[in-house]
Structure formats: C-alpha cells, structure tokens
C-alpha cells in the first residue's frame, strides 16, 4: 500500500490534532472577545464623562469594584495574555524565527501567559480578600 491513501484519509482529523489549529481557533475567539471589550471600554469610559466633576465616572468605577466584575476582569486578562503571546509567536513565525521549533515556541509563550496571569490573579484576589491591593501605596505611585 502506498502512502498516499493514508495521508488523504488523515486530512481533517489530522489538521485538528495539530497544536497550531487550536492556537488559531483560540486566537480568533479571544480576538473577537477583545474587539467587543474595546468597544464597550471606550463607550463606558467616555460616556461617564457626561457627568459633572467626575461624579458619574466615580459611580461607574464603584460599580466595577463588584466581585463579579473583578472575576470578569481576570477572565479578560486571560484573553488579552493569550492573544498577545500567541501574537508574538505569529510575528516570530513571520520573521522566520524558530519555525523548526514552533511547538517549543508556542509552549514557551503559554508559560509567559501563565506567569503574567498568576501576577494579575494574585493582585485581583488580594484585592477581593482584603479590599486593598497587595502593594498599594508601597511603591510611591500617585494615588
């Protein structure tokens, strides 16, 4: 038996076994989520400026301090980090960097996603638990 029929039969099932196809699908889904979020973000922030002296803006920020909103923020961080780091991988592929080790590059990028996510999740859940960020004020940043 020649190799050809087997290869033909494997098309389709084989494509979706490849890491790259799942990476592509998640990239597209996270991208669409981010388009929606960016639109909502601009509309919410700018519309709150119709209030006098920042009153409406502060009310919106208080509303977004709700634990459900913060958990949604953490989910958004996952979408942002995945899209950003998979995007870095795509740019590396475009430049021809590491094409022969693309799976290593993909999983390295995902490791960066996990590390950054842990930092954001730690800060968010410290805030939820203590009602204050872990290094709030400690770094001397204007507040």
């Amino acid at each position, binding site marked *: 038996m020649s190799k050809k029929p087997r290869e033909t039969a494997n098309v389709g099932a084989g494509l979706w076994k490849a890491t790259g196809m799942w990476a592509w699908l998640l990239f597209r889904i996270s991208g669409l989520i981010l388009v929606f979020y960016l639109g909502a973000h*601009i509309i919410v922030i*700018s519309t709150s400026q119709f209030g006098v002296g920042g009153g409406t803006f502060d009310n919106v920020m208080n509303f977004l301090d709700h634990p459900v909103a913060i958990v949604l923020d953490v989910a958004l961080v996952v979408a*942002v980090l995945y899209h*950003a780091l998979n*995007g870095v991988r795509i740019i590396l592929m475009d430049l021809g960097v590491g094409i022969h080790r693309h799976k290593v590059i993909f999983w390295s990028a995902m490791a960066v996603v996990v590390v950054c996510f842990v930092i954001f999740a730690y800060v968010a859940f410290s*805030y939820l638990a203590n009602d204050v*960020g872990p*290094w709030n004020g400690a770094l001397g940043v204007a507040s």
Partner: protein
Amino acid sequence: MKAEAVAAHRGGMWAWLFQRITAILLIVCLAIHLTFTHLLNIGDLGYDNVANRLAHGGLTAVDIILLAAGIYHALNGLRMVLLDYWLTSRVRALAVTIFLWAVGIAFLVYGIWGLWPWIGY
C-alpha cells in the same frame, strides 16, 4: 484572476504590515496601561486618581496611542474574520472596509473626547 481574488481576500500587504506594527505598539502600551491602572493603583481607580496619573503627559500619550492602535488592530482583525467567512465579493469587501474606517474614526474621536477632561485637569 484566481491569484488576484486570493490576494484581495487576504486583506492586502499594508493591512498585514500595520496589523504587526499595531500589535507591537499594543503589547508595549497595554503593559504600561494595565500596570498603572490595575497593578499599582488597584482599588484607587477614581476620577482624581486618573487625573493625577494622566498629569504625567507620557501616560496620556500611551493612552492615545492605545486608542488609535487598538481601534485599528481590532477593526482590521474583525475585517479579516469577515473576509474569511462572509465577504465574497469585492464590492462588499470595499463597503465593509469603508464602514469600519468610519466606525473606527468615530470611536477614536469619542475616546479622545473622553480623555479630554483629564488633560490639563
């Protein structure tokens, strides 16, 4: 003819290049934006807090770059998805491109208008 159609459905060389350029701008500016809003100032987000931060012109510049690069990247990305699934004719593709540019410019203007009260607060 075939090659021409494929090229049109790929969205064009300049769109491809700008998608990469805005991607790099977004990674740098978004890292700054998220660090200052959500890591260093968590729990303090309010009108005066944002005003204090944006008093440093650099952060205002970062936000304006984010607006422009983010809107371009988002809408061009959306355009690429539409080109894959729905935009089969060149006329439709052109109409959607023009529509998305109008939407993008409207969002850019509204976003800068929203930042305006903090500039020189």
